[in-house]
């Protein structure tokens, strides 16, 4: 089956981000595929590559990046949620004349249409609430 995930929780604040990550790994281990992981609401902080956790805690943005690279999964942070929370890629940084960008590798920044598209193309969309 093809899955997409909707992630709403903030990394390091809500366990739900970790639950979603374990769920993502378990879907792949069970032979399913992940079409897209859509980060919305505070979930967009998962795309902040400037996260600097202590060495004995997971680097959550890096974990998602690695999972995406390994399994070719589309990681999308919602542009409307992300920009106002200061998660921004270089294109948007230029558009809004910001001095830096911080979107983690293998994430892209895009609109809510990508969530609608994920729903169309997936057998299941599972929400991980904050």
């Amino acid at each position: 089956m093809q899955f997409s995930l909707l992630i709403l929780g903030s990394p390091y604040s809500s366990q739900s981000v970790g639950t979603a990550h374990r769920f993502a790994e378990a879907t792949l281990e069970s032979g399913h595929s992940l079409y897209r992981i859509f980060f919305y609401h505070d979930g967009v902080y998962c795309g902040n590559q400037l996260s600097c956790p202590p060495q004995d805690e997971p680097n959550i943005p890096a974990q998602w990046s690695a999972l995406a690279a390994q399994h070719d999964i589309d990681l999308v942070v919602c542009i409307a949620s992300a920009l106002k929370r200061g998660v921004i890629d270089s294109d948007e940084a230029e558009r809004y004349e910001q001095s830096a960008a911080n979107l983690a590798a293998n994430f892209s920044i895009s609109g809510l249409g990508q969530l609608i598209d994920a729903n169309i193309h997936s057998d299941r969309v599972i929400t991980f609430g904050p």
Partner: protein
Amino acid sequence: MAPKRTLIVCRKPPYGNALAREALDVALTAAVFEQPLAMLFIGDGVWQLLDQQDSAGIKQKNHSKVISAFPLYELTELYIDADAMQQRQLSHDHFVVAVKPLAADELGDFIARFDTVLSF
């Protein structure tokens, strides 16, 4: 591909948490992409529908104004938890759009008719 029947469930009151508003944005986007969509307001989510909201004082965008645009986006499949309405002593006159009431014993069957449930 067959269109998927999608339900957005709104359980949060407006303003206290951005999720209430973000659910509306998902609905507006689905409408722009011409995807069939219904919305169900349950529990405290029914407070979202009140007219007379004036959010200028808290410097937030007005939730009810966005909901009042729903007919222009052809978002007309709007349902409400009749029990939650009754508990809060609300009537349809209080609401900014027309919503169809669902009794407690109808809610479960109603939800099960959809392929995807996005809950906010």
